């Protein structure tokens, strides 16, 4: 019996020792709620996978957030040829991938062709690419179907992968998709060292990173998947976590009191919209849509759902981006007007039901749903909520036959460029191909404006075209434009050098950050 007690004591002591050992290392711990199921940079426009790609992969160009300009990255330099329908790039020579292979122009060709073949994720950004011509190991041309002004801005999202290794692990022509489930193929500053499904991914610094290392660099990055944001907050306050990606906005008041934490909040380029699927009855009637838009309490949304952090959106484009049109007609909250429009549409007492898809895990969306449920209810319209997460919602938005009438969605720019920000949401070519055009709305006029805007080289004329475009979109009442969404993260005090990058909406540029003691 005594023996047992000693053993038990030793066990408990060893337990205590091992528990304290891991604290306070030079590794940054980042928590988010959505499990990133792959390390495939095709999906790096999806926030959870994008965050990871940002530390493990490099792109040809980078968007520099302070001055809002494109800077060379893997590509040392580039030149516009043939009036914008061809670009010539020259690669840096000292770049190696995580397994030591040298970066060559063939890798770029493979990466682009891979994305074009998979037709998912960032594929919509490079629809104008015709082909890649390799000239020598470090020089290549990108040929475009038409000269587009937006093309260069899409490049920060196109990560270059290690084609030699990828080809080795291709199974049944899957472009190494399966291999990328638990491996990375990048040249970025950090390389994957541990993958635990639904739990965490650990990255260690890659010693031969081509940009070299400073003395104060962070040594490793750990991404933790923690569903519950209360748990994330607890860990942050206890020092078990450095960055919490999606705080509940109503918790920030409390978190502000904690002097060990800092709150970074910026207005992002993301616009929160309530989308009406115009191909479904009775939403095909523009007066019904007008009625619904007037019955949204925009003030309530800003004050309650966003806790005062956001601002009212004027149209589909965020005021952060070029060519923003400040003179759009604003839809106000007015139940009388709403009733009037409903009457004109032939539904004086409502009497129909709308199925509304929303992300049920998000407090902002919950509040928005409750508000429209109440206000539209006053018009005699029944709201039937369908809770999902954004992946599920994306699937529904893509589906032409989906029985959902209204979507609480985002206009989420894939890059910090106006055409890219709006095209997939409003050009008829993208209806049902990507999930962006939830309303399934389009008009010939809008298509024409897009097509002339993208090839226009004169900046003033472009500005005119896109301002006009926004006006056309707002007139269509395919969505109610509710708010410009704030982007907020909470970090530990020791995290230094975080900066929001509109080109990589939720990514954290760990390489340029440090941890103080």
């Amino acid at each position: 019996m005594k023996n047992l007690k000693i053993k038990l004591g030793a066990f408990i002591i060893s337990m205590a020792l091992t528990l304290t050992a891991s604290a306070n290392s030079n590794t940054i711990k980042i928590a988010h709620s959505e499990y990133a199921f792959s390390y495939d940079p095709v999906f790096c426009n999806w926030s959870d996978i994008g965050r990871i790609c940002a530390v493990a992969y490099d792109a040809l160009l980078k968007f520099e957030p302070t001055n809002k300009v494109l800077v060379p990255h893997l590509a040392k330099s580039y030149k516009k040829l043939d009036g914008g329908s061809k670009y010539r790039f020259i690669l840096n020579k000292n770049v190696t991938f995580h397994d030591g292979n040298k970066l060559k122009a063939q890798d770029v060709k493979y990466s682009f062709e891979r994305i074009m073949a998979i037709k998912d994720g960032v594929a919509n950004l490079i629809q104008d690419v015709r082909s890649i011509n390799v000239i020598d190991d470090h020089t290549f041309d990108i040929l475009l179907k038409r000269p587009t002004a937006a093309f260069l801005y899409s490049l920060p999202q196109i990560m270059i992968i290690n084609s030699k290794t990828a080809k080795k692990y291709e199974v049944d022509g899957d472009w190494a998709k399966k291999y990328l489930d638990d491996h990375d193929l990048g040249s970025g500053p950090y390389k994957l060292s541990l993958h635990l499904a639904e739990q965490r991914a650990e990255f260690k610094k890659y010693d031969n990173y081509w940009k070299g290392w400073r003395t104060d660099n962070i040594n490793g990055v750990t991404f933790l998947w923690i569903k519950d944001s209360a748990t994330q907050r607890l860990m942050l306050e206890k020092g078990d976590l450095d960055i919490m990606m999606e705080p509940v906005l109503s918790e920030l008041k409390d978190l502000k009191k904690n002097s060990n934490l800092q709150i970074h909040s910026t207005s992002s380029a993301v616009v929160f919209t309530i989308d009406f699927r115009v191909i479904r009855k009775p939403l095909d009637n523009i007066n019904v849509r007008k009625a619904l838009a007037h019955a949204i309490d925009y003030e309530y949304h800003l004050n309650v759902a966003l806790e005062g952090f956001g601002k009212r959106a004027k149209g589909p484009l965020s005021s952060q981006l070029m060519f923003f049109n400040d003179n759009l007609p604003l839809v106000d909250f007015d139940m009388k007007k709403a009733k009037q429009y409903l009457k004109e549409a032939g539904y004086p007492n409502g009497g129909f039901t709308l199925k509304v898809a929303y992300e049920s895990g998000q407090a902002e969306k919950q509040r928005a749903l409750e508000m429209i449920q109440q206000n539209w209810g006053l018009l005699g319209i029944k709201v039937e909520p369908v809770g999902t997460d954004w992946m599920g919602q994306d699937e529904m938005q893509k589906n032409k036959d989906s029985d959902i009438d209204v979507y609480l969605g985002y206009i989420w720019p894939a890059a910090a460029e106006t055409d890219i920000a709006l095209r997939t949401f409003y050009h008829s070519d993208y209806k049902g191909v990507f999930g962006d055009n939830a309303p399934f709305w389009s008009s010939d006029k809008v298509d024409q404006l897009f097509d002339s805007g993208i090839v226009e080289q004169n900046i003033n004329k472009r500005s005119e075209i896109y301002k006009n475009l926004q006006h056309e979109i707002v007139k269509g009442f395919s969505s109610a434009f509710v708010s410009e969404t704030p982007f907020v993260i909470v970090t530990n005090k020791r995290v230094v050098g975080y900066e929001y990058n509109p080109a990589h909406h939720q990514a954290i540029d760990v390489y340029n950050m440090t941890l103080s003691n």
Partner: protein
Amino acid sequence: MNFIIYILKKLTYLTTVLIGIIILMFIIVQSIPGDPARAAAGPAASKERLIEIRKDLGLDLPVYIQVYRYFGRVINLDLGKSIRTKKDVWDELVLYLPASIELVVSAMFINIFVGVLIGIYSAVKPRKIIDKLSNLITILGMGLPIFWVGIISQLLFYNILDIFPYGGRLPAGVNPPQHQTGSYIIDSLLMWDLGLLSISLHHLILPAFIMSLPELAVTARIMRNSILNVLNKDYIITAKAKGLNQSRILFVHALKNAMMVPISLFGMQTGWILGGTLLVESVFSWGGLGSLAYNAIYKRDFPIIMGVTLVISLCFVLTNFSVEIIHKYIDKRLT
């Protein structure tokens, strides 16, 4: 010999039940609204492609042939692909299963060990403070919604008392043992890494205990009643009259017979606890089948949900079967 025949009979019946499970799964899958061909082809597919896929999936065939083909697929472990991630469902299940088994087995262990102990204690000293206390625990245990207990206990044990970790199977920075079985407990034992073992146990205890809570209550109560029943049996009274030692009577004679009732219960209990993984794993960030299903629910990823359902019910059926055999075996030894 009789025993072997018994097992064979049971096995035959088990097979028919397994067939039934697959048929039921087929019916549930059929009742999912929406066009399966459309789901498989993607929204951008052309009409011709849809017809082609409908043919590939056998949707134009009579129902009994479809059932037959569904059988073939299940037996070949072809459960389809996840709608969103496009990964093979069977691969996903294999990846997540060990974590759940570890949790369920530990919960069962706590259930049996603690439950039986409380049961004995309150039977030996009926209507004393321990008995009353265990009665209270029993009542509470059966009434607690475990998802809520999970949330509250995290607040209590991680935030306030700081004696258990926030969840997860290992803390950040600690690497799991080399993959052999997928259970961190067994793998770290195989590597003889006691530090790792203690860390994984530390993470395991709270979720396992919470999952076992409702069943533990039942076990304790049944054990208590079973012992009291046995203690009133003739042969025990005779033994008492003969002046045999009290604890000898309890542990040698009474316990052996009294255990039969709870043992027959353990099979069913495993089922409840397997169901509990759904509610507890997501609260504790435990990367098992429950978390997998939880994510799939929000994504409307039916192939994954159906896969989890199938695997969990298979685990349940097999456990039940083994428990029955063991029960029969012990019963035979006793009589």
